[in-house]
């Protein structure tokens, strides 16, 4: 299956999901699970050739002039992410079918879900930065729809909007950064970006800053981390999939992808390392202050995302390899923990850690899954998490600058993480059975299969890391192409400093675990939501609305005549300014070759215009305007444009009808404006007319730009198969413009119809 086919199949599944739900009912999820499963298989097949050194690429022209190609590239990093997206996607799709069983909008859920999955696949496979950006924004949009899936709840909608504004705002920064990169080096293909040319470019700091804002918002890095806990308003399968395993890794993924092009400069190293380090410490610390299972997991995810960013910032081959291994370990255990948290919520009716207890007998399989996953999270031998953690410590110890600080920060983040893992594993399952909203019971297979498969996989890969060794080595080679291949992963690294640190974090974690209740109280008493960055978001949003109200009051008077005057003054003023500063040749007025009948029509039009402005009868002013219009049609006819003359006269006739119909609804004629106001309006009109006339004369007499009508006259018959040049221009040469115009016309007509209908219903027709 080509990668393009894979993407199309994914989007196709999204498109048919709502219809399928209508037919297949409760089997929808099971049927649709086959799609990600098949895609997963198609990516598994690609692993062996890749490890042998064959990188699959596909390239389709999209908009080549914008440097936009749909270039797909399954290198190590892309393939690792694609396997996670489709593999976890299949398990979550199956899980969601039971989690949302009987939900009336399950079809819609799968539409958004597969829309997200395919966009995420596109994101990781894209080798073109613009294409990547498009998929990036699609993931933000589908994430918005999924967070707000429970759309009748205000909190869901607010959380969805917050996630959207933060990630899409960052996306805009990313787009500008990407465009700057493209215009600096002339290509947007990730695999061909010349690192040296970019890093020595004078705009490099700006490009870097903008791209980093994009990556940091998407991956919930401090100080943008606040949207991720908010996103927990989504159904749990969504949290497990988007907000821990896949989408939030997009920012980290982008940083990894751009490491060869933008990385290894002092600016990159300090910015990425500091932000990542701050995020991992803040996230771990905040996780201790939560009671809700999902919020604990969300903050722990923030911590891990910070760690991944931090490792990319360190930038050594060792740290980059640790990043890849830790990413895989995290995706497996965090996906399992989230799904298990959802199963507990589903079975007991609560996610409050303090209320839960003694579930091990009622939910043995979920218990097993959580124990295994938590072991990986805490970094116990022999889980994959242990290998990941050892590598992270080794990377921090070998940091090129300030290894002591780097190691200390890592330790500071991992100690709370161990404590959190212990809380998750012990509190809900052991101890006395408690009173719960529902009697606990093990869910159907679809609900325990996912967590169990993921957590067992974490254990198996910890015991036999050679299974993924080749793929992971290829993945880190994407970031550090020049480095020698990393040593093969081993389940046991022997006695070394990293092991010592591991033991230290376990011991520290145990200590924190026993002090957990006091700590939680203290952290929640800090009331971080009062002064944290989340508050900044609220203030910014409120400020924006205040500004909108202010400028609306300033500009929107609600009087048509003011709008008209504003437009006329703005257009006329700007045109006059351009004419005065730019026009090099001033037109000469030649009246000699005017025929008497042409002059007569001109005089008639002027007289009619004056009448229209002066008369006190509406009917007379409409008729006078009609005279002006038909006069224009005559002018067209005199100067050899019969087509325009025809159109103009029909338009004029219909305009008169429309005016007459409108007249019925107008109140009696009244003088509303004072004499000075009318004199000012006369001045504005005369000035506007003068500006337009001058513009026309300058344009016609300008020798610098030859008129384009020659081209159309020559090509009309051979190219457009028509002798009516105007029509050929409209329907062939400039057909796209016409298509746009008729679309606007149709929308305007619908708007007019709706406005008048609304006015009629309110009884306040204007």
């Amino acid at each position: 299956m080509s990668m393009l086919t894979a993407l199309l199949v994914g989007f196709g599944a999204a498109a048919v999901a709502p219809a399928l739900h209508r037919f297949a009912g409760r089997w929808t999820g099971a049927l649709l699970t086959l799609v990600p499963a098949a895609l997963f298989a198609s990516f598994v097949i690609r692993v062996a050739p890749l490890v042998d050194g064959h990188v699959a690429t596909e390239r389709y022209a999209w908009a080549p002039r914008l440097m936009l190609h749909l270039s797909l590239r399954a290198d190590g990093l892309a393939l690792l992410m694609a396997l996670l997206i489709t593999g976890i996607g299949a398990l979550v799709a199956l899980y969601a079918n039971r989690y949302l069983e009987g939900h009336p909008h399950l079809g819609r859920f799968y539409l958004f879900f597969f829309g997200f999955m395919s966009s995420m696949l596109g994101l990781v496979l894209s080798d073109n930065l613009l294409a990547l950006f498009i998929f990036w924004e699609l993931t933000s949009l589908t994430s918005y729809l999924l967070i707000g899936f429970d759309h009748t709840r205000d909190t869901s909608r607010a959380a969805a909007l917050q996630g959207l504004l933060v990630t899409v705002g960052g996306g805009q920064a990313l787009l500008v950064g990407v465009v700057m990169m493209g215009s600096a080096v002339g290509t947007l293909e990730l695999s061909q970006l010349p690192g040296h040319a970019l890093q020595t470019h004078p705009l490099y700091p700006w490009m870097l800053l903008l791209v980093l804002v994009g990556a940091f918002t998407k991956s919930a890095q401090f100080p943008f981390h606040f949207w991720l806990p908010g996103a927990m308003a989504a159904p749990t399968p969504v949290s497990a999939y988007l907000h821990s395993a896949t989408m939030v890794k997009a920012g980290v993924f982008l940083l990894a992808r751009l490491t060869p092009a933008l990385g290894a400069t002092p600016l990159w190293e300090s910015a990425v390392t500091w932000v990542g380090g701050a995020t991992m410490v803040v996230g771990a610390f905040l996780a201790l202050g939560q009671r809700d299972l999902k919020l604990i997991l969300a903050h722990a995810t923030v911590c891990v995302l910070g760690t991944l960013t931090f490792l990319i910032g360190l930038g050594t081959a060792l740290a980059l390899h640790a990043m890849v291994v830790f990413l895989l370990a995290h995706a497996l255990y965090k996906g399992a923990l989230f799904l298990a948290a959802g199963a507990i919520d589903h079975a007991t009716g609560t996610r409050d850690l303090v209320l839960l207890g003694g579930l091990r007998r009622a939910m043995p399989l979920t218990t097993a899954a959580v124990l295994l996953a938590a072991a990986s999270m805490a970094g116990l031998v022999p889980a994959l998490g242990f290998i990941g953690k050892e590598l992270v410590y080794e990377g921090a110890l070998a940091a090129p600058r300030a290894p002591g600080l780097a190691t200390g920060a890592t330790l500071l983040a991992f100690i709370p993480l161990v404590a959190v893992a212990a809380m998750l594993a012990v509190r809900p399952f052991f101890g006395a059975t408690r009173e719960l909203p529902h009697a606990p019971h093990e869910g159907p297979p679809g609900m325990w299969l996912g967590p169990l498969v993921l957590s067992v996989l974490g254990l198996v890969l910890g015991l036999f890391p050679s299974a993924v060794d080749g793929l992971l080595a290829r993945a880190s080679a994407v970031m550090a192409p020049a480095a020698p291949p990393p040593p093969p992963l081993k389940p046991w690294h022997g006695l070394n400093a990293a092991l010592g640190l591991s033991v230290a974090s376990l011991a520290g974690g145990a200590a924190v675990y026993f002090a957990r209740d006091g700590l939680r109280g203290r952290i929640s008493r800090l009331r971080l939501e009062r002064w944290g960055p989340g508050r900044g978001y609220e203030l910014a949003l409120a400020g924006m609305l205040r500004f909108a109200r202010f400028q609306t009051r300033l500009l929107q008077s609600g009087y048509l005549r003011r709008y008209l005057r504003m437009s006329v003054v703005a257009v006329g003023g700007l045109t006059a300014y351009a004419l005065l500063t730019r026009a090099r040749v001033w037109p000469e007025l030649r009246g000699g070759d005017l025929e008497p009948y042409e002059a007569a029509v001109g005089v008639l039009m002027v007289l009619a215009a004056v009448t229209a402005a002066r008369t006190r009868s509406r009917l007379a002013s409409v008729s006078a305007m009609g005279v002006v219009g038909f006069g224009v049609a005559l002018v067209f006819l005199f100067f050899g444009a019969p087509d325009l003359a025809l159109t103009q006269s029909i338009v004029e006739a219909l305009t008169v009808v429309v005016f007459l119909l409108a007249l019925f609804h107008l109140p009696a004629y009244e003088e509303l404006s004072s004499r000075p106001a009318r004199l000012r309006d006369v001045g504005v009109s005369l000035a506007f007319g003068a500006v337009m006339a001058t513009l026309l004369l300058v344009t016609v007499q300008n020798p610098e730009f030859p008129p384009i009508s020659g081209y159309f006259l020559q090509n009309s018959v051979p190219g457009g198969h028509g002798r009516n040049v105007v029509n050929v221009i409209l329907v062939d040469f400039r057909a796209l413009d016409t298509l746009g115009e008729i679309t606007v016309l149709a929308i305007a007509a619908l708007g007019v119809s709706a406005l008048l209908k609304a006015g009629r219903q309110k009884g306040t027709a204007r």
Partner: protein
Amino acid sequence: MTSLIFNSVVRALQPLLLFFSVFLLLSGHHAPGGGFTGGMVAASAFVLYGMATDTAAARRALRVPLPVLMGVGLLLALASGLVSVVSGEPFLTSVWLKFGAGVLGEVELGTPLLFDLGVYLVVMGVTLTFVASLAEE
């Protein structure tokens, strides 16, 4: 407006105007006319009919709801642009067919005509929507 003379004239004029609008549409590629003008003339035929009877009668005479008219027009214009995409040319490149048609001699048919038909329908629908919205208020 109830005027016997006006009603009788409109009755005779309406089919003629419609016929004329189609003529304008078809001849527009070589002579003055085209979809825009044709659509306006067709609209004025129904506007006159509506003035002679009433708006509801004019809507019935049209048979098709106005939004559908505009929608079909837009789709036709869009579809005419997609014909070339099938053969790998850019969107909206014109495609022409030439064939002999008996007494008519050689006839050229191209996607621009389809496009123009779309313009015709949209313009007709838009104009009638404006007039009908005001007239029914």
